[in-house]
């Protein structure tokens, strides 16, 4: 696969960043934000006279297939949240990487598991919680909407002040006509894999004896399995999973220059390219403190 990243930085800043971090993929320079603007994702909330901040995009990522068609987009309204490399790789390369084998169906009954797609849930970085239903041959599960008396396949995550949960991503459904009534419903074809993007805010982590942390994620899954003739009773089950987690970085834990480059020099150039203000003046203004 190929990876590119673009920003409104100058080429020499990107070259310094590349040296500092051994970057092996192209970093593209869009110093006038011409490409950002052409894509229609310029952050227009920032005032055009607000230098050097004006010119950044609403941050996001596009995933393309081999033909160059956009197959997925990841955009977040806040810079505090971003997709994980695992999510991007999954979107680009498909579902067959990383995950363990599907759970087995339990005889004639549906089996399910809940796994965390990643190694570590960092604050603000989104990973997928994956709920996988193994559906016995000849049976199917239902997608929304369903008529009264039937249960669609759902996953509900328990509210937690330290947890950020994005809408679940379901596989596509196919139409299915009931033999008895002739009614057409939407069903999932075979096994069902549901992805729920989650991240944490370091507000409800559980410390472990070894100094590490976990984020506990609880929820409820519901489903109803049917074959062409009969339906099983609806099922509901509670799950709880402890995900390895890393708390917010705090200033005291960070390097003096986290970008590993001469940040003041580059920032000075960025300011000077569009305004006569000094770097100190610009930095003072963003703190919101009174003069």
């Amino acid at each position: 696969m190929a990876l590119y990243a673009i920003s409104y930085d100058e080429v020499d800043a990107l070259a310094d960043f590349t040296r500092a971090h051994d970057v092996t993929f192209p970093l593209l320079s869009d110093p006038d934000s011409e490409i950002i603007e052409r894509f229609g994702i310029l952050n227009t909330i920032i005032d055009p006279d607000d230098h050097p901040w004006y010119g950044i995009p609403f941050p996001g990522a596009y995933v393309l297939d081999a033909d160059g068609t956009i197959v997925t987009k990841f955009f977040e309204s806040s810079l505090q949240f971003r997709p994980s490399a695992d999510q991007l790789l999954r979107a680009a390369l498909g579902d067959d990487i990383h995950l363990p084998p599907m759970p087995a169906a339990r005889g004639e009954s549906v089996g399910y598991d809940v796994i965390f797609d990643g190694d570590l849930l960092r604050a603000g970085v989104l990973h997928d919680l994956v709920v996988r239903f193994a559906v016995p041959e000849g049976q199917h599960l239902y997608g929304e909407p369903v008529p009264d008396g039937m249960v669609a396949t759902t996953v509900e995550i328990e509210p937690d002040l330290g947890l950020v949960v994005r809408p679940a991503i379901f596989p596509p459904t196919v139409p299915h006509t009931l033999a008895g009534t002739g009614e057409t419903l939407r069903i999932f074809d075979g096994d069902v894999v549901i992805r729920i993007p989650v991240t944490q805010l370091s507000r409800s982590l559980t410390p472990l004896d070894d100094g590490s942390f976990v984020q506990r994620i609880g929820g409820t899954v519901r489903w109803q399995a049917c074959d062409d003739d009969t339906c099983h009773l609806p099922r509901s089950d509670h799950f709880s999973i402890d995900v390895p987690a890393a708390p917010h970085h705090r200033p005291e834990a960070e390097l003096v220059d986290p970008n590993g480059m001469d940040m003041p020099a580059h920032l000075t150039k960025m300011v000077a390219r569009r305004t006569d203000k000094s770097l100190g003046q610009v930095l003072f203004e963003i703190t919101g403190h009174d003069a």
Partner: protein
Amino acid sequence: MPFAKLHESGQWEDEYGGLGPAKPGLASRQDPVGEFPTGPAIGERFPDVIATAQDGVALDVHRHRADRATVFVFYRSAVW
């Protein structure tokens, strides 16, 4: 103005607990509320992009990626 709390470190904390020198609502910490534009739609061909890379050489993204699946990231800045 969005939630902003002065942290003991001297930095500003936002509603999610994130810290930064800029007060939420200023500089890059001006986030859209509700819907915001996300560019070309899923299903569309990714637009042509020709831009200078860190080696100083212009790069045509579609030509360079050839027929590989691709992740293309728009980010804030490598500097700050």
